[in-house]
């Protein structure tokens, strides 16, 4: 399996050979890429961390094996959104699946439109998570590229201090603070103070209003 961040893969795990093959056929009918596996272990052996997509997990008898897999996936660092397919009326399993971190559950027999919609939602969620992670890493990288003095100025700025006060705190001229401040804005790629504040929260130097990311 080659890692392809652009093209997500719908990973289908089902121990019934006909069901997993037919699910793959159905998923591929809307132009999505799909791969199927007979067991969670087979999937884990083949999956390369970082590949985007989502998981379609059929929870068959013995009933909770699929839910065990949910735990195992998380332990292995797989953070793909998971859709669980449950038996008709199997509410306890559905509840356990959602508690276990599944993003959705589909009851068999399912309407294929609902299933495909759920898959699209899961893929969109995976994409958004990845984008947000990339943005976060980028912000952290930029922050690390600041000099320690610039980092200090950034902390004061996002805490709402005026240049005059920052200059006083640092025992430097206002002009110097202005230069540092301009540097911070450009190095961080911030277009406004609001932008910079968002980044400060990501970096963790501003926590008062809780974690946004």
């Amino acid at each position, binding site marked *: 399996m080659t890692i392809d961040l652009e093209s997500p893969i719908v990973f289908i795990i089902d121990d*019934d050979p*006909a*069901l997993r*093959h*037919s*699910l793959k*056929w*159905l998923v*591929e*009918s*809307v*132009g999505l890429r799909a791969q199927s596996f007979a067991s969670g272990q087979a999937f884990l052996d083949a999956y390369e961390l970082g590949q985007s997509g989502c998981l379609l997990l059929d929870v*068959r*008898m*013995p*009933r*909770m*094996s699929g*839910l*065990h897999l949910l735990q195992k996936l998380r332990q292995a660092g797989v953070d793909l959104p998971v859709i669980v397919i449950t*038996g*008709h*009326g*199997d*509410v*306890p*399993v559905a509840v*356990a699946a959602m508690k276990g971190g599944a993003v959705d559950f589909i*009851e*068999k*027999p*399912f309407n*294929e439109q609902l299933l495909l919609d759920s898959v699209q939602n899961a893929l969109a969620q995976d994409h958004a998570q990845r984008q947000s992670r990339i943005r976060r890493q980028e912000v952290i990288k930029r922050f690390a590229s600041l000099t320690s003095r610039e980092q200090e100025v950034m902390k004061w700025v996002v805490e709402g201090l005026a240049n005059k006060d920052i200059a006083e705190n640092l025992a430097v001229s206002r002009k110097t603070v202005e230069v540092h401040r301009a540097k911070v804005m450009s190095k961080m790629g911030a277009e406004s103070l609001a932008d910079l504040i968002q980044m400060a929260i990501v970096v963790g130097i501003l926590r008062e209003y809780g974690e946004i990311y």
Partner: protein
Amino acid sequence: MAAGLVHEINQPLASIINYARGAIRRIDSANPPSLEGLRDSLERIAQQAYHAEEISNRMRNLIKGDFPKLPIDINALIIDKVEDCTPEAQAQNLLIHSELDLKLPPVLGDGVQIGQVLLNLLGNAIEASSQADQHTQRVITVCSTVRDGEVIVQVGDRGPGLSPETAERIFDWFYTTKPRGLGVGLAISRFIIQAHGGKLWAQVSPHGGTLLSFTLPIIESTNQEEACP
């Protein structure tokens, strides 16, 4: 949980729907595939339909009493099915406690069917336990004994229990107390047990909750005097 047979027949039916819907979507798409590209899905639809037919034949054979009759080690079957249900029980913080009579004689029948009955009873017990109030002990008991030339298996839960009226109705076809249950699990289970010459019934458990019991005649005991001297 519907009984195993119903679940089993749903598998090929679900595959057939997937193949058919996948084919229709391809035909309706901007780039419809060649006939050759659809052939495989049609072939698989046919295969799955045959498979569904096989399962329905098995159900019919069961109705006619025409099923494999081999010695079954009920205790081994219980241990196996309890193991299958253990992850789900654990997820609900439930203990499945087994009290098995180690001198249990074998019974004659189809182990797959009896296994499905056990799974069904255990599944129901787990579900009933999830409706118990918070102070109830989180335990399901499974026991096996011999009495009067029959093996008796009992599955008890400490769920909300049954009223005397529902105790019999739960075996009716399509009767269900679950929001979206099919209402066939216990009906099929009773059917399977009766086809094996046994009985399946429900009563209020001494600990509250429901006690489901079934009997199966033991092999040597066509004559009851012999089994109980």
